[in-house]
């Protein structure tokens, strides 16, 4: 039995998830200005964008390979309609929603100037729940989700994105508290 489409589905799924997490990490390091002095801010922004675009490409390959493998039970409705999968419906739904989220975030990154800054930022922050859903999808549906390597490496990758996210939130909280009128 030729399983290569299955192997590609699994490997591109893992790589796409890591790329999404890396893109988040780069984005939060950039916005919290924790990028150090060695590399220019433009480098961080460019990497952030590049990683996001690459995540989309690998997710697309992941979905196409899953669809093309006749044994995985993925039809067009499963790919495009949340809740349409015949089995493991919830797990598939998270994947589909994450995919839509990723598409929206990446395709609104380029024509940024078409949006009001606030609107754009809200849309862009969809990347956080989209990445979280992709991780849940992987845990519920992945054939490798129960292997020791997956259970060590995935949390590490997630931690790598949660840390800069924490820095950003902390920075915002600090700024807010300083802006607040001081009591005399």
């Amino acid at each position: 039995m030729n399983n290569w489409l299955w192997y590609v589905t699994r490997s591109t799924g893992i790589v796409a998830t890591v790329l999404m997490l890396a893109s988040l990490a780069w984005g939060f390091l950039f916005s919290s200005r924790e990028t150090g002095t060695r590399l220019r801010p433009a480098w961080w922004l460019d990497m952030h964008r590049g990683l996001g675009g690459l995540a989309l490409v690998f997710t697309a390959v992941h979905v196409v390979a899953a669809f093309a493998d006749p044994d995985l039970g993925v039809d067009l409705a499963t790919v495009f309609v949340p809740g349409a999968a015949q089995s493991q419906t919830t797990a598939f739904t998270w994947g589909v929603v994450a995919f839509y989220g990723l598409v929206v975030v990446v395709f609104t990154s380029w024509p940024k100037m078409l949006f009001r800054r606030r609107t754009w930022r809200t849309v862009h922050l969809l990347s956080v729940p989209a990445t979280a859903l992709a991780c849940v999808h992987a845990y519920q549906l992945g054939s490798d989700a129960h292997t020791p390597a997956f259970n060590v490496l995935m949390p590490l990758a997630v931690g790598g994105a949660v840390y800069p996210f924490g820095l950003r939130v902390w920075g915002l909280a600090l700024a807010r508290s300083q802006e607040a009128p001081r009591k005399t």
Partner: protein
Amino acid sequence: MDTDLHSPSPPPTPIDPVVQARLDRLAASRAATTPSTTSGTTSPNGRHRKRHAAKRSRAAAVLMSLTATAGLSAYFQHTDSVGASSTTNSVTGVAVAVATPPAAAAAPNASPSATAASTTPAAASTNTTSALADGTYAGATATNKYGPVQVQITVAGGKITDVVALQTPTGDRKSISINDRATPTLVSEALSAQSANVDTVSGATYTTDSYKISLQSAIDLAHATTVQSSATS
């Protein structure tokens, strides 16, 4: 006045080397800031801005991602082929009578011998269902490389009236999907054949083999129950 119109014009005065160097530098920097469609853009203030400030690092990320994908795929193939070397079914547990009518139930401990369980479907006895004791029988669990398969049959009026898969492999998406597809076919085949002589479902060889073993052990038990209950009566 006598002027010589044919006298040669004086040679041009050479440009001051300092000025020439300046002009060269200017030309070079102009050429560098000319907008090109692929490598950069010129902002309104005329300064050249690179479109990809992290061009090399991005290329490295693409390369690493492709390498990781290839490496993981090769690893998955390797682990799969290692697992494939254990292709035989192992049978664990025995067939048990889940519910039998009083007469059959009176037969003491009818189950174990029924699973003198064959470990390959080829070796499985192909008893048809003649003289099956009514009741519900859970077959032995046949485990292939993807996981366990266990089948339960219900016999009424000496015929198999229902077949249920109690266990099928659920370890990975592929097995789940294959079993979703194969199990209904195997059930309807078993019901119409009234035996474990079912055709292999294409793409589900392991499941079919394990299914046959478990089904046969349940049928054997129903058969043995009949024999024992008629011996005791």
